[in-house]
């Protein structure tokens, strides 16, 4: 898939921003928040609206643009990139949601942004007349500092008390939750992916959507948003939201090491660049990162081709995209692991950019939809015709 001139301009803008993001990255990490000026610049460039439906003023561009922009922004600051991709992806997911929910969020404010969260600390919902009642904590709300809404992942108890709970997304406005400042992660610290607390909040039915309606093919939102993008499954192809920053971070890490090695000598006063062991590490890391990028873009192209042909992806495709996505993140982690010995003990400072990227890529790889063990096993099971272990695949 080639990019248009307008898309290339945005990619170039992201590339031009990376050095500034790098300058601010240490500060963002210490503050455990992306600076407001970075957020404002992203807003001004239109980064958050790349996947938003055109009827609300968005671009409606395919998911490869998230990968392409992430590959640039992540080279400066992994956390800023993560906030970009997480807020941008929610605008895509809302485009597939019930038209009434889209109107609730964007009707008065088409630039409203949505973060997301997961009930890792035990938030619960119960069924109520006309909707759900939510209580407790939802975590990992990347982008919560800038969001007007939160699209929570919820597990709805079965109606008759039997069988597994139903996985849904449930939208709540900013006025419905408190933010708990509990994000003290050693990696991706700048994302400020804090927890939100809900106390007996009613969520109307139309603001909830079961993930089974987001498996590719027509979605509730595709009735009003005709582009093929709104027929691509967000829970499988959309996991690029986590791989895109990992790709950018890995590229940034490689660039740090390259620049360092160009001017550094060993204790024996030999140029580091002439050491074949250093060269082999540089090349293998570079090839791993390029393979990760090619794989991510190929998945995006495959998914769009299926949607454009009016077809529905098979479960084998969906599991394969998740597998490939997790594998791409693995390649990025391996690349920085491979480069780590070249930093040397001189790099062991809190300000070291490579080591922040090293922390960030490892943190990114813990997100469950890019966790290799889980995605690999599930994809392997599906290859053998066994049932999926994850209801969201």
């Amino acid at each position, binding site marked *: 898939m080639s990019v248009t001139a307008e898309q290339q301009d945005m990619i170039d803008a992201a590339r031009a921003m990376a050095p500034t993001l790098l300058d601010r990255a240490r500060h963002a990490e210490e503050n455990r928040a992306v600076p407001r000026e970075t957020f404002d610049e992203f807003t001004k460039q239109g980064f958050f609206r790349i996947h938003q439906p055109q009827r609300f003023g968005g671009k409606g561009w395919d998911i490869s643009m998230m990968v392409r922009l992430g590959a640039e922004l992540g080279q400066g600051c992994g956390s800023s990139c993560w906030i970009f991709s997480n807020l941008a992806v929610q605008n895509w997911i809302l485009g597939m949601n019930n038209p009434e929910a889209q109107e609730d969020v964007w009707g008065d404010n088409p630039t409203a942004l949505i973060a997301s969260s997961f009930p890792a600390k035990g938030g619960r919902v119960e069924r109520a007349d006309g909707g759900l009642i939510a209580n407790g904590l939802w975590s990992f709300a990347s982008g919560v500092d800038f969001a007007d809404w939160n699209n929570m992942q919820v597990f709805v108890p079965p109606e008759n008390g039997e069988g597994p709970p139903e996985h849904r997304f449930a939208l709540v406005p900013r006025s419905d939750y408190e933010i708990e400042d509990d994000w003290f992660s050693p990696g991706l610290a700048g994302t400020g992916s804090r927890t939100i607390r809900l106390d007996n909040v009613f969520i109307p039915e139309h603001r909830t959507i079961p993930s089974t309606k987001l498996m590719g093919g027509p979605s509730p939102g595709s009735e009003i948003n005709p582009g093929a993008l709104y027929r691509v499954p967000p829970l499988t192809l959309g996991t690029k939201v986590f791989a895109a920053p990992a790709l950018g971070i890995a590229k940034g890490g490689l660039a740090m090491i390259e620049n360092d090695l*160009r001017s550094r000598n060993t204790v024996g006063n030999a140029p580091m660049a002439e050491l074949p062991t250093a060269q*082999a590490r540089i*090349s293998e890391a*570079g*090839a791993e990162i*390029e393979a990760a990028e090619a794989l991510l873009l*190929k998945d995006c192209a495959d998914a769009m081709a299926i949607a454009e042909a009016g077809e529905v992806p098979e479960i084998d495709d969906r599991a394969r995209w998740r597998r490939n996505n*997790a594998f791409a993140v693995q390649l990025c982690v391996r690349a920085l692991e491979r480069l780590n010995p070249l930093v040397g003990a001189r790099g062991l400072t809190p300000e070291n950019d490579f080591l922040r990227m090293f922390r960030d890529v490892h943190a990114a790889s813990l997100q469950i939809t890019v966790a290799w063990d889980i995605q690999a096993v599930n*994809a*392997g099971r599906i290859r053998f015709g066994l049932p999926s272990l994850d209801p969201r695949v």
Partner: protein
Amino acid sequence: MADGNATLAEKQSRHDEFVSIARSFTETFRERASEAETNRRLHRETHEAMRDAGLYRIQMPERYGGFEMSHRTMLDISVEIGRGCGSSGWIFSNITAQNGIVSMASRQAQDDVWGEDGSVCTASSFPAKGGKVERVDGGLIANGIWSFASGVDWADWNNMQVFVPQEGGGVAHHMALVPKSDYRVIDDWYSHGMAATGSRSIELDNVFIPEHRLLNTADARAGTTIEASENFGPIFRVPPMCGANKIFSGPVIGMARGALDAIERDLSTRNNVAGVPMATLTTAQMRVAEAGALIEAAWALMQRDCDVALEIGEIGRPTTVDDRAFWRRNNAYAGVMCVKAVETLHPLIGARGLTPESDFMRAYRDIHAATMQINMAWDRHAITAAELQLGLPPTDPRA
């Protein structure tokens, strides 16, 4: 069509058509693969099926009935064929790529090869056993043995790699075309991997090669041979040593896919000694997933490099040493990933797989042999790319 006359949609549909023909061969070629290995040559029907379907012509000039298609098409076809039989994939891509390289030689050389019959095939060879050329009036004299002539069983010509001594010392790398009447085939291909390629040696005794049948590869790289070749299409602007190295990675990706197919087939029905279906073992699921991801990443990387090379060819700018070094690095790395994939799968075959007929074990042998080809040698290409990345001059003369 040449020179961008075909629309993108037409090109894509022709690409899809050729790949689908190749896919229709996969199973038949797989059934023949074990016998071909024993014979140390492909079945004549295999060669004729590929020839008659026009697969060898995808990189030939339209003037001779060719299609002038991207390296991407060659790559994707060789993946499908190599999936059934690695050696068949290798012969397909080697003959096809030579047609592309012959197209970079002089118009007269192309007429010599295809003037009467556009289906004539050309193999290639390398002087690993010490073949030598010397300069004479109007051309070269060649003596000795040139090896690894994949496709020699089906070829009427051989495009030999030669190192021509230069007046000021040193050598210049050329391709030199000789008709089959000029050489004798030596049956010395007893490799345990890719046995069916029949990549035998040829011997030349005092053979004169006229100047117009020589292609200086440094000139081809610089784009200065285009005028004389009269082939102006974008694929002929991609230098032979970087576009065409997909000759080797394409079949390798196919072999890895074939190996994965064999394991998936086997594990879908097999129980372990405790009566538990192998497919339910988490370790087996992990291995299948990792191999699948490695192979798909390798393929995506090669497709992307083909697309980028064609874009550069279409713009018409000469490639830079960086372009070439990173393509070659990636090409070798695709091989590394595919070898890792079959190594990852290997423990799943079990001792029951230790038979001469096992599809998995043949793919495993083939892929290890295929990655010995110097274009697939990771150590070599990793270092060259890193040298450039770190601002040092490249130590590989062909970079």
